[in-house]
């Protein structure tokens, strides 16, 4: 027969001779020295008092169970001070045993009943090295801890006090400020798919029904008018160096930012040359160029095809930001031999482009250009304009304020405002697309506002959701 020793802290049965509990890591040596029946008796208040550090009698302290001597805050009397003793029994009564504080497993096996001191704790797992702190009230849904959970729920402890204790230990401020959790019917509980469905519904349906209605105007952030002015002042046939810093993953936003710029460059009959550090950057640029030229051809104001002088490609440069330093050294343009970059344009770029444009979804691309390329001698006189995503805007504002950026167009708002400044409208499909995105902006933002309001209402009313709050 294998003899076992029960852990005085968590109640786990360990093999006799174990120094520490396999479950919680509590020391077992002191417990083993005692007979099993006295492994963890209900501590008396007087015993707990004398067990505190500084107690007068060391020998008396050494004879106390570990749970009460080493961790006095776990003593039942300390935690249950505010509780109503069952049936008028006093907590200091050595015979006091709260109802329901028994271990069913032990009852069934016929062995000694579990020491009631275990079930009396509100906090478990403090002493153990492997267990996180757990509150008895939290264990109601944990079947492995059911005896403890049932013990806590079966007492007459004031729920408000229990809730405050939980809030104190978990440091969750929402628990301090909200009333007790309301029991909502399962159908009324918010679930994550409902949030997603709300977002999809508010963006999808209005687009189908209302996209032709007037929807307001986009906000004009600072820097757009300056960017427009710089491009507008370009002389004809001016060489423009473009760093293409986005790929299809962000193209839905960035195409709307870059499309008016590209069309404007063609209006000014400038000669853009595109370079990219992304493997799919050139393909993305080509796609937008095709859209732009299609617009211009439809408008019969401009005829251009890929591989013409209206659009040139320097190419894809691997190597990350170092490639920008290489590009900034103007004599390197003469080494570039691509089908789309004519020697005349390469020579013009080497002499110094009239304008440098960074089209990037991330602020880092613009920053790297400003730090690695712009300070070089050949690029110091070249103004830089950035067309970026809305998320990159705050990081680039200081460069705009300091004058390092001559203009900044960010997000759909910026692209829309830029297009409004142009004298010539885009083609009908593109104009429809912009109007459609205004609807997206409106209803998408309203969906987010509604989601935020729902979240705050849920917190105020204490609605438990599937999201874990």
């Amino acid at each position, binding site marked *: 027969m294998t003899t076992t020793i029960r852990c005085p802290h968590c109640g786990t049965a360990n093999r006799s001779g174990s120094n520490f509990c396999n479950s919680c890591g509590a020391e077992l040596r002191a417990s083993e020295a005692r007979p099993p029946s006295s492994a963890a008796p209900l501590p008396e208040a007087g015993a707990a008092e004398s067990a505190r550090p500084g107690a007068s009698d060391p020998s008396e302290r050494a004879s106390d169970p570990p749970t009460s001597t080493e961790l006095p805050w776990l003593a039942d009397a300390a935690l249950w001070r505010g509780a109503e003793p069952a049936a008028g029994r006093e907590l200091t009564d050595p015979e006091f045993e709260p109802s329901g504080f028994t271990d069913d497993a032990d009852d069934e096996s016929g062995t000694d009943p579990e020491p009631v001191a275990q079930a009396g704790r509100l906090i478990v797992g403090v002493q153990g090295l492997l267990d996180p702190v757990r509150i008895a009230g939290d264990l109601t849904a944990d079947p492995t801890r059911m005896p403890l959970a049932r013990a806590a729920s079966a007492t007459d402890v004031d729920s408000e006090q229990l809730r405050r204790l939980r809030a104190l230990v978990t440091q969750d401020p929402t628990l301090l400020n909200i009333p007790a959790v309301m029991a909502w019917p399962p159908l009324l509980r918010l679930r994550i798919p409902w*949030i*997603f469905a709300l977002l999809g519904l508010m963006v999808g349906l209005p687009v189908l029904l209302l996209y032709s209605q007037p929807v307001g105007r986009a906000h004009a952030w600072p820097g757009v008018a300056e960017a427009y002015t710089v491009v507008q002042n370009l002389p004809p046939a001016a060489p423009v160096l473009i760093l293409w810093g986005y790929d299809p993953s962000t193209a839905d936003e960035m195409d709307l930012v870059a499309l008016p710029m590209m069309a404007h460059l063609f209006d000014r009959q400038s000669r853009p040359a595109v370079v990219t550090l992304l493997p799919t950057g050139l393909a993305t640029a080509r796609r937008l160029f095709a859209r732009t030229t299609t617009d211009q051809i439809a408008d019969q104001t401009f005829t251009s095809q890929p591989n013409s002088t209206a659009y040139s490609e320097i190419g894809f440069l691997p190597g990350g930001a170092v490639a920008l330093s290489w590009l900034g050294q103007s004599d390197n343009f003469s080494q570039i031999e691509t089908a789309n970059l004519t020697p005349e344009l390469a020579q013009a770029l080497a002499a110094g482009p009239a304008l440098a444009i960074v089209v990037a979804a991330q602020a880092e691309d613009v920053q790297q250009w400003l730090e690695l390329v712009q300070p070089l001698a050949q690029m110091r006189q070249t103004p830089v304009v950035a067309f970026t995503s809305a998320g990159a805007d705050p*990081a680039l504002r200081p460069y705009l304020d300091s004058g390092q950026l001559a203009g900044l167009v960010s997000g759909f708002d910026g692209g829309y405002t830029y297009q409004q400044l142009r004298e010539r409208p885009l083609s009908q499909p593109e104009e429809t697309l912009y109007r459609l995105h205004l609807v997206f902006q409106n209803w998408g933002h309203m969906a987010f506002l509604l989601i935020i309001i729902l979240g705050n209402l849920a917190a105020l009313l204490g609605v438990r959701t599937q999201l874990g709050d």
Partner: protein
Amino acid sequence: MSLPRFTFTTYLAPLIALACLILIVLDRAGIAPGLHVVTTLLYTWTILLGGFALLLGVVNVLLVHVRRIQTGQTGWTYSLALVATLFAVFVAGLIEPEGAFGAMLGWIFENLIAPGQAMLFALTAFFLAAAAYRLLRIGRTGGVWMLTGVLLVLITQMPVANNFVSPLWAILADWTVTYPATATIRGAILGSALALVVAGVRFLIGRSQP
């Protein structure tokens, strides 16, 4: 007594990095214009190494997935699809006279790569929705400030709101983005830049390994 082992990472790599650093700094500072040719060569080597690393990455991905197919690991069918797609695109690029800019690769890019990447990125909206629901609450620590900033910018960006919200609201949103938000981001950037400098110096003086 055994001598300390001479390894590439302990001595040679930091020395090469230090030499490159000195050359680039001297060139960019304009102290030694004659170094221009050397730095251009270094930049060119880096670009070549970057291209080679890209190729190496593709080969590595291919080997990993071929091994997974051979051993029949979980999800080997996905690996098979990946390898088949890789070869299809590779062959399409080879057989077309225009190479990477041919019509077939253009179709693949336009109808497979671009929608696929856009679809994956669009999932961000749902993550943001879940985060907005859970985190933008008044009761949370700092929740009022976060919520105020979000509402300012969110409502300013609503086109329909610009018709009836006071211009003061937009001015306040501009100010929020320009000053508090920018200051915070710049602080984080400066902190990370300093950390990068410290990490670089530690590497150069041999206190840490790459």
